[in-house]
């Protein structure tokens, strides 16, 4: 797998720091799981944070904090929560979440909800589009982050194959189309709505309240 499009460094830093919201974190994690290079970058930012912790001025602890902790050491460890197996054709990072059924939203295009709690109007879903299909030309009212899981699509900014990460925001308008050959499956975190352009878009708009 040759990955050519990665999340930006700021995105990876915020992900490592745990300050990215949950919907976007899940899509970044799907990429990181497929990308050794970004795993190493995340590990670097985690070390960066660890070194900053070492250098932090210590806060005054609560009186008796150490004794309290020592008293808890011999308590039985709570059992680790059981993580389900991910649904078929879902990436492993989605295992903690419920995933809905595939639903038809347009010619050759299906959509399924991923039950990641929304954050500021950003939600997570998977999109599946047949070879040769295309999405209507559209803009975005917020961020649209995509990790390709299978197949490939193209738009103005290049080709996005398995593992590639597309970080679009409200400045981007594009007409993605799926390459011939394989069905394309993506994991998407999207804020706001797609804003479809053109007569076909206006026709479809009421049906694609994703």
């Amino acid at each position: 797998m040759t990955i050519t499009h990665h999340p930006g460094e700021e995105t990876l830093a915020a992900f490592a720091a745990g300050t990215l919201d949950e919907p976007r974190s899940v899509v970044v994690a799907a990429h990181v799981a497929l990308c050794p290079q970004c795993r190493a970058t995340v590990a670097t930012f985690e070390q960066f944070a660890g070194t900053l912790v070492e250098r932090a001025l210590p806060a005054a602890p609560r009186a008796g904090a150490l004794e309290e902790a020592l008293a808890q050491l011999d308590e039985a460890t709570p059992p680790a929560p059981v993580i389900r197996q991910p649904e078929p054709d879902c990436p492993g990072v989605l295992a903690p979440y419920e995933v809905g059924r595939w639903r038809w939203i347009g010619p050759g295009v299906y959509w399924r909800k991923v039950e990641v709690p929304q954050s500021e109007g950003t939600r997570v879903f998977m999109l599946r589009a047949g070879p040769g299909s295309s999405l209507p030309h559209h803009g975005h009212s917020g961020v649209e982050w995509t990790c390709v899981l299978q197949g490939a699509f193209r738009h103005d900014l290049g080709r996005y194959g398995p593992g590639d990460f597309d970080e679009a925001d409200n400045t981007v308008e594009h007409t993605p189309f799926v390459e011939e050959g394989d069905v394309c499956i993506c994991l998407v975190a999207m804020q706001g709505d797609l804003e479809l352009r053109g007569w076909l878009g206006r026709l479809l708009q009421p049906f694609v309240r994703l």
Partner: protein
Amino acid sequence: MRYEAEPITPQKAANLVRAIATRRDREAFKDLFNFYQPRIKTMLMRGGAADEIAEDLAQETLITVWRKADSYDPGKATVSAWLFTIARNLRIDRFRKDQRAQLHHVYELMLPAESAPPDAPFDAVQRESRVRAALDSLPEEQVRVVELSFFEGNAHGDIARKLGIPLGTVKSRLRLAMARLRSFLGENS
């Protein structure tokens, strides 16, 4: 005062965790606790946690170290980076609105199997020394912007207001800090 514990070198910290893993060494736990608990508390408070919650989470972080000491792999992360990730995950869980799913599992699920080859061309100890060198070379003002941005989760505009500097300055400090970090870590990290 005990919370001004002596600095712990990465090697010493790794030895303390191993002492816990191999012989449930309570003295080793005390040393780790005295050094890290108050500093993790600082980090959590900077991220917006109230004193009481930061105290609890920092304590839970160290108790997790005791429980998970045998799964610590010094080749993958130094103790400080490992503790940071434990504290981060506990904090994420604590501030979740919906308790059913758990984002912190996602951080574990994305990692390759134990047997997979390492991701980086250098190990955790080398990574730590490069990060330390990069941090030492950064002006304080750049470090502050990085902390405010990534680790405390502030938007660029909020950082500009907090520090009383123009937005462009926030962005350029972040960019310079990132470039420096990159130059110390090389292309593939």
